[in-house]
Structure formats: structure tokens, C-alpha cells
């Protein structure tokens, strides 16, 4: 330690190397995205030149045209948007409702059923993709978007999380008062409870959105025709079209990532807060 010992107050002064370290971490996190943009806007010759180009070029529209020629990428982005939004919104609402039932309503079998919900989290259903595919084919859902959305709506963890949240934030008196005023349980949920936990439900929905948008394995298995591809599968299709352009898959990656980066700039603070709000405090 070469720096002179600071006169410490509180947690001490922040030293320069702290910033250097954090800045390095930020660069590591952001550079690949920047590089994606660089390659996506340059031609192949520039992208493969050594030393590498480090500034964006003017080739983006050309590559964009190639991307759209190769796969219906706009369609894919819309598909992703639809799937992710439906899963995010659906999870938020379904988990809030179920969490509310477990937290604030009394009914026979409640504790047992809640235990079952918790236990389902221990079943690693991801390893069952083969039978899951078979079920989709029995239902005639192979190559449809509902094959992604409908199973994605169930989230045991979301229910668990919303139940904890509702237990912690909503007073029983509030529910009681509303009930005495003659409100049905649905009205109590919708008019009283949901407005209070909406921020939490939306954070849940956000994470559901991001996870669904970025999911790969399951869409890769069930989606077969380009009109049904999500953005992630469209990237893979671009990578396959080996006879075109090196920057092609990169342009696709950029297109598929940009919407989430925009979303993250808008609401990333809430996601950070959602994680920091977690369980491991004491």
C-alpha cells in the first residue's frame, strides 16, 4: 500500500484504483456490445483487417438489407417482442394473483398447495426437452409461438416471490376493511392489493421479459420456419447462411440486442434494485 494512510472517516475515502477497477469492469462489459456495432456497420474486408477497425463504418444499411434478404428479421423481432411481452405480462399478473391467494386468502389445502409450488422448483424440467417436444407435437403446437408463451407463463418462483412481497407489504387490516365494505376477493386483489405490489410485479415481469427474449434452447427446438423464428433463432439462421457475409450474424446480433439495451437504459435501475432487494440481507 503506497498511498498515505488516509484519515478515515466512515468507510474511508474512495481510492483511485477503485475507480480504475470499476472502469475496467465497465469497459469489459460494454466493449463487446460496442464491437458488435463496429462489425455490424463495416464491410467484411474491414472487419477482417488487421489491425482491426475500431470505429463504426457506413455499411450498416447494406448489411441490414442482406440480413432482411436472408431471414425475415423484422418478423423475428416482432415475434420476440410478442413472446417476451406476453410472458412478462402474463407472469406478472398470474404470479401476483396466485401470490395474493397464498398470502391473503384462506382456503382448505392452502399450505400444502404452497408447499407443492415450492417443491416444483426443485424439478429441473429443462432436462425433459424431448418429451416436451413430443407434447407440443401432440398438441399440434410445433412451430407456433404459443409453444413458447403458454409454458412460459408458469413460474413457481414468481408465485413464491409475489407471496413474500404481498405478505410483507399489505396489511391484513386493509384487506379486512375492504372485505367488510362488501368487496369480492377479486375486487380486493385488483383494487387494493395489486396497485400496491405493482412495482414488484413489474420487476418480475421485466425479468420474465428479458429471460424470454434471450431464450434459445427451447425456441431452437420448436420453431422450424423463418416466419416463426424469434430474434435469437434468426441469428442462428444468419450464421448458417455461410455463403454471404461475415458481418451478417453480427448485424443480426446487434438488431436483436439493441431493443433490450434501450429497455435496459430505461428501466435497468429497477432491475438493479430488484436484485439488490434480495434475500441475502441478514
Amino acid at each position, binding site marked *: 500500500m503506497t498511498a498515505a494512510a488516509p484519515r478515515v472517516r466512515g468507510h474511508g475515502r474512495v481510492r483511485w484504483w477503485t475507480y480504475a477497477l470499476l472502469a475496467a469492469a465497465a469497459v469489459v462489459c460494454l466493449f463487446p456490445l460496442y464491437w458488435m456495432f463496429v462489425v455490424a456497420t463495416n464491410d467484411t474486408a474491414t472487419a477482417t483487417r488487421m489491425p482491426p477497425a475500431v470505429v463504426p463504418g457506413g455499411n450498416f444499411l447494406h448489411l441490414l438489407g442482406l440480413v432482411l434478404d436472408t431471414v425475415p428479421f423484422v418478423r423475428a423481432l416482432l415475434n420476440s417482442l410478442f413472446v417476451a411481452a406476453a410472458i412478462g405480462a402474463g407472469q406478472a399478473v398470474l404470479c401476483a394473483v396466485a401470490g395474493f391467494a397464498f398470502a391473503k386468502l384462506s382456503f382448505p389445502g392452502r*399450505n400444502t398447495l404452497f408447499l407443492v409450488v415450492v417443491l416444483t422448483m426443485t424439478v429441473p424440467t429443462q432436462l425433459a426437452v424431448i418429451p416436451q417436444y413430443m407434447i407440443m407435437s401432440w398438441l399440434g403446437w410445433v412451430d407456433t409461438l404459443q409453444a413458447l408463451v403458454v409454458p412460459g407463463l408458469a413460474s413457481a418462483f414468481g408465485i413464491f416471490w409475489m407471496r413474500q412481497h404481498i405478505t410483507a407489504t399489505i396489511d391484513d387490516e386493509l384487506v379486512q376493511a375492504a372485505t367488510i365494505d362488501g368487496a369480492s376477493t377479486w375486487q380486493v386483489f385488483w383494487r387494493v392489493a395489486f396497485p400496491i405490489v405493482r412495482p414488484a410485479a413489474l420487476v418480475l415481469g421485466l425479468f420474465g421479459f428479458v429471460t424470454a427474449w434471450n431464450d434459445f434452447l427451447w425456441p431452437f427446438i420448436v420453431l422450424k420456419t423463418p416466419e416463426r423464428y424469434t430474434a435469437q433463432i434468426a441469428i442462428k439462421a444468419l450464421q448458417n447462411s455461410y455463403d454471404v457475409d461475415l458481418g451478417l450474424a*453480427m448485424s443480426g446480433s446487434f438488431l436483436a440486442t439493441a431493443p433490450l439495451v434501450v429497455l*435496459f437504459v430505461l428501466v435497468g435501475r429497477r432491475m438493479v434494485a430488484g436484485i439488490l432487494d434480495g434475500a441475502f440481507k441478514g
Partner: protein
Amino acid sequence: MSGVVVALVPAPRAAPPAPVRRTARGLGERLAPYAYIAPFFVLFGIFGLFPFAFTFYVALFDWNPIGDQVFIGVDNFTRMFADPRFWNAARNTVSIWFLSTVPQLSLALVLAHVLNHARLRFALFFRMSVLVPYVTSVAATAIVFAQLFDRDYGMLNWLLGLVGVAPVDFVQSTAGSHVLIATMVTWRWFGYTTLLYLASLQAVPLAVYEAAAIDGAGPWQRFRHITIPSLRPVIIFTVVTSTIGGLQIFTEPLLIATGAPLTCGAVRQCQTLTLFLYEQGFGEFEFGYGSAVGVALFAMVVVIAAVNYLLAGRIRADR
């Protein structure tokens, strides 16, 4: 996977006494709670539990999806245990898991420690920056990193070349491909892990650090004697999640070896267990054999969860 969460978080408190009186309610009101929770049970039953149980059944068959299904008992399992490709995939999975978990968690520890600084400026910017990889899709990550690490056209090899290192083939060599995949996994998850650690650290009263500083403890000692001990439960939690996540690594190896995607290269140098499952199921269409691999993966998850449960129990006892 989320099962491990349950093992570590405090057991849910018993729900408060029911506030809603029974008397004035009609049948609809009494059934309403079941309607609220039914969607989950229906969906999970059809798309989660049933296929999971069905995996064990299919694994007993020679199951050709466009041909015949023949019951063969445990033959798929005996074949699997004698299959060098299975063991190769298991080795690759463990190696990639190790190479990604150790740097990921160490980096996250250090970053969480410095991010916890009370007077840090731009804290929100740094916190958000490290979460950017998490919102970047695995597919995009794989494409970008494969390009950066390319043998002939990659920036990394160009930089290595400047200091006189011969180009490294990060796809065709075993070690190289593992490093490449582990780098992608680390990049994607270290920021998220950092925030988990930070969440836990913020629960440590600032006064503890202050007192230590006044007593003359330097940054390293504070890190060693305050930060690490208070993070022990969450560290175990992240080791377990990254282990179970590691068993499921699929997209990265699929996308980096474009010539032989399902095997991740000519000699399966980076084929993971989940990719092997996919290759058998949807490349070779041996649904039975692929399901047997799924059962094996499940067994590993059970073992890991059990170890976790024991460790978590010991930690609670220590407190």
C-alpha cells in the same frame, strides 16, 4: 434449479391468520382462491411435471420419432455408461464449469466489495454496466466472442500477435474452446453475481466497517475479515446455481463451432452434456437415448442439491 433457492432462503413464514370471514361468502367466493392458483398447477402439470416423468419412460425405449418405438429396458443406460462420448461431454462440462465459476465468483467478490463503498460516485452507472451482459442474449454473446477470439481474424489473436504469441485456435483446440466458452459464461454472469453479493453486503452495517477502519484494518483486512465471512451463504448459493447452470450450457458451444455445431467441433472438444442430449435427441433422433442422458443430468442435479442442502445446514448451525 430454483430449488436450491429454497434450501438457502429462510423457510417461508407461516401465513397470517385468514382475515376474510367465511360466513357471508357464496360458493364462487369460496372457490375463487383455487381459480387464482389453478393456472400454475395446470400449466406446470402439462408442460413441466408430465414431460419430466415421461423422460424416465422414454428412456426405456429405442424411440424413433418417425419410425418404431421398441421397449429395451435399461439398454440405453448401459450404452450410455460405456459411451466415451458421454464421458467426454461430462469432462468438458466439468472443465468449462470450473473455468467459468472460479473467475466469475472471485471477480464478483472483489467488485461487490468495492461497489459497497459508501461514498462511491457513479455507483448507479457501475451497477448498471455490470448488468448489461446479463441482458445481452447468449446467442449474440457467442457470435461476438467467437469473432473476437477467431484464429485468423480475431482481435485477441491480433493483440497476442503484437507481443509475439502465435495465434491460438480457440475453437479447434480443447483447452482453447473451453477457455472461450468459460469466458462467455463469466462475462454474462459475473455482474449479476456481483449484485447478488452486493445485496448481501449492504446488510452489513456500515458501522462494522467503520469500526474496523478505526482499529487500523486496511482494505485487504476489511475485505478478508468482514466482506468474505458475511457473504458465505450467498457464495454457496451462487456456487450451486452456477453449477446447475453449468450443467445446462448449450448455446455457446452450439454457436462457436459452425462447421460441426452439434458436436462443438470435429473431436467433440467442447460438446457439453446438454449439447450431447440435443445431438442425440434432435440430431440423431434417438429420443430414448437422449432421454437417458436427461435422466443422468437429473441425477447430477439431485446430487448437487443434496450437497448444497448439507452445506447450507452446516452454515446455519455455525451461526
